[in-house]
């Protein structure tokens, strides 16, 4: 199943005009606030009537303004995970979970409630009311409620935005499992580069109501010309393999033959992962650094240098591990005499590679882009 989107709509301050396809897996709508992400999701849900456009899941039309077709929200077979959870306060967790399932056609109830409850770890909460749940628990129940409606399309509108970092880390793995275990398209709205790096099968970058870029996460995030969430969000995404766990609390990764160290992560040795390296955590050096506390040094050649409006520049360095981005000052670029084709070393502090930047492997061949 795949979702096709074509949309034109004017809002105060922004007019949307875009189209893209969302294949099975997680398609992240990425952009700064006010770029029209939520409008797209609400149009898919039927909570907003766009001026013109068409959305369909394969041949099943959700709306088509040209043919004057409009499916009301309750007939769209959705699983909408809202930012604020929106659990029904007068129902218990068990009743909340059963709500969407009750309205789903009998033949299509494919999710087993027991399994979903187990996957989300909410078995001990079933008899409670939402008011007594923590933010993270609420969001897990909201995910379960959406899943048990046996949806043909899952919508998630910044589902982690209202949670603190610890709760985010608690929920993200559930979205990873969702992506890997179900076969319906997921539209996921966020402005967090970490979430994109971990979850996205493909990324649609929105800017000013238009699709600025659409492609696999590693390509889009590594492209310094795309900085929808600001320069701080720029960072390369590398494919790595867990090589070893060391007794001093570090995990060793193998990135195309190069070695990377980071604080211990829970993944098994041999597992393939994606890791995001924020550009502002990378230092460049012409000579191989000696007597440095940083453990991660990748050797490569400068592929491109892009200067922004401010004092900074983004340097792309191709190494054995893949392209690494470094955010340095223009002054450093001229002081080092950096130019394309030059050999240099990218230095990454070990603690800058936090487990939050690590996500499970995603087969990117499946993505449209």
């Amino acid at each position, binding site marked *: 199943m795949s979702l096709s989107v074509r949309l034109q709509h004017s809002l105060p301050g922004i007019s949307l005009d875009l189209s893209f396809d969302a294949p099975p897996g997680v398609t992240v709508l990425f952009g700064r606030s006010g770029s029209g992400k939520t409008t797209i999701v609400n149009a898919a849900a039927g*909570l907003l009537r766009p001026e013109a456009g068409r959305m369909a899941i394969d041949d099943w039309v959700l709306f088509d303004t040209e043919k004057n077709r409009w499916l009301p929200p309750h007939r*769209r077979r959705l699983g909408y995970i809202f930012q*604020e959870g929106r659990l029904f306060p007068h129902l218990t967790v068990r009743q909340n979970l059963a*709500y969407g399932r009750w309205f789903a056609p009998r033949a299509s109830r494919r999710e087993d409630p027991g399994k979903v409850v187990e996957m989300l770890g909410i078995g001990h909460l079933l008899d409670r*009311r939402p008011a007594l749940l923590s933010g993270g628990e609420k969001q897990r129940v909201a995910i379960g409620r959406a899943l048990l409606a046996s949806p043909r399309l899952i919508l998630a509108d910044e589902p982690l935005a209202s949670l603190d970092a610890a709760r985010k880390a608690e929920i993200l793995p559930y979205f990873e499992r969702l992506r890997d275990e179900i076969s319906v398209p997921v539209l996921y709205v966020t402005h967090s580069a970490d979430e994109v790096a971990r979850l996205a099968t493909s990324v649609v970058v929105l800017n000013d109501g238009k699709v600025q870029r659409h492609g696999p996460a590693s390509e889009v995030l590594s492209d310094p010309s795309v900085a929808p969430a600001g320069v701080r969000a720029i960072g390369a995404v590398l494919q790595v393999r867990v090589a070893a766990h060391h007794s001093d609390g570090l995990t060793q990764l193998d990135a195309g033959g190069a070695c990377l160290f980071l604080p211990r992560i829970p993944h098994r040795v041999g597992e393939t992962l994606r890791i995001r390296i924020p550009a502002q955590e990378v230092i460049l050096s012409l000579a191989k650094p000696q007597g440095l506390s940083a453990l991660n040094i990748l050797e490569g050649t400068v592929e491109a240098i892009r200067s922004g409006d401010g004092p900074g520049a983004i340097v792309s360095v191709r190494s054995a591990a893949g392209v690494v981005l470094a955010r340095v000052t223009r002054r450093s670029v001229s002081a080092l005499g950096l130019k394309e084709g030059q050999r240099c070393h990218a230095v990454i502090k070990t603690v800058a590679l936090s487990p939050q930047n690590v996500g499970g492997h995603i087969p990117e061949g499946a993505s449209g882009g």
Partner: protein
Amino acid sequence: MDWLGPAETEALRLSLRVSLCATLVTLPFGVFVAYALARWRFPGRQILNGLVHLPLILPPVVTGYLLLMTFGVQGPLGKALAELGIVVAFRWTGAALAAGIMAFPLMVRAIRLSIEAVDPRLEQAGATLGASRPMVFATVTLPMIVPGIIAGAILAFAKAMGEFGATITFVSNIPGQTQTLPSAVYAFLQVPGGEAAATRLVIISIIVAMSALLLSEWVGRRAAARVAGS
């Protein structure tokens, strides 16, 4: 109720019957009108709002007179109803009609407030999970406004128990037919030596009104606590 005379007992009984009937019959309309005013945007919404509130603002005697002109034996609606065998003029049903109309604004206000307190985003969530509009109302909105509905009903009941001006204008003050509790108090005060009976009815009025208020507060708090999840 040995300490009450037969006329007083009759008045109390009649008042309870009139008020209960007025409350129960108007309740579904009250919920519907409150929902329409709270959630729908339609032409004439302000006019409907004004009409609903009119009995609260008009002198009760004016409302009673309008009822008499409309539902009286010679009134257009009164004639039509009479052909169907329903006579409201100078009957207890007329007293119930007057009480219901006078209590309607209070009922609608209480229910409307509780509907406006329901987050429409929860209703949206219900729709995305496959519930049609009537189902969303039945499974999300209605359970959450139960406290408001109960509070509105109790308030309307208390108001109906106390209704005097419109009732006496519309259906007069016939013992056993239309002489409700306030009408009886008024009647007893018109005859010499009636003060004792009037005082007893006044005490009963105070008890009924206070109980209704306390009950509606208690029900509202309990239901609100249940929704809040404790």
